[in-house]
């Protein structure tokens, strides 16, 4: 049971969170090629080690960036997207 720190609510158990995929997987524009669109839809880096991920805290529905290590499970940072309210 990992412990993640929601940038707004603070530390909570992982069951309160929803994995939102790789960070930096920016949605291509409407004129994207088939290849770049399917890349965006289906391909994940699946990094072994440090990774940047989007997570959502289901309790407050804040979507945020988490930098964590997929091997050691160490969380190095959780950052609000779009700045402080």
């Amino acid at each position: 049971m990992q412990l993640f720190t929601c940038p707004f609510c603070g530390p909570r158990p992982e069951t309160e969170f929803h994995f939102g995929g790789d960070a930096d997987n920016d949605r291509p524009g409407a004129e994207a090629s088939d290849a770049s669109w399917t890349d965006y839809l289906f391909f994940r880096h699946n990094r072994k080690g440090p990774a940047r991920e989007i997570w959502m805290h289901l309790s407050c529905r804040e979507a945020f960036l988490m930098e964590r290590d997929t091997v050691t499970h160490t969380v190095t940072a959780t950052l609000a997207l779009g700045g402080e309210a």
Partner: protein
Amino acid sequence: MPESELNHESPERTLVSGDLAAFSRISGVDLANVLRIARDRALVLGNAGLAPGWHDAGFALSDLSAGLAVIDLSGTGLADLAARGTTADLMGPGPSRTISFAGIPVVVEPKDDAVGLHVERGHLAYIWTWFAAVLREPSA
């Protein structure tokens, strides 16, 4: 086309999102008395005194008076009970009042000697059954 505002009493519980400072200014509600449930969202207990929908100052209101039931917990066994239901610190400070309790989302309202748990009304039967099961057990 319906008239957009009917003359109805102000809701007793209101969900407000957006510029909370602006909301506080215009409604007169002190932000210290609202339950923050997200970075830009709060649950107002009592009269917000404003109509639902968008307000040009930058916030929106929706009525939630009938959507929540509240259960008050008090007594010396409160910490024990909380430990059964959540990992969060029920009485603790912290900006957010929304936690997961007994597996469902709950908004926590600290009171003087008690704690109010606001649950979605559809969950009331479940959480009541849960409390009954836990209170039957010997304390840890």
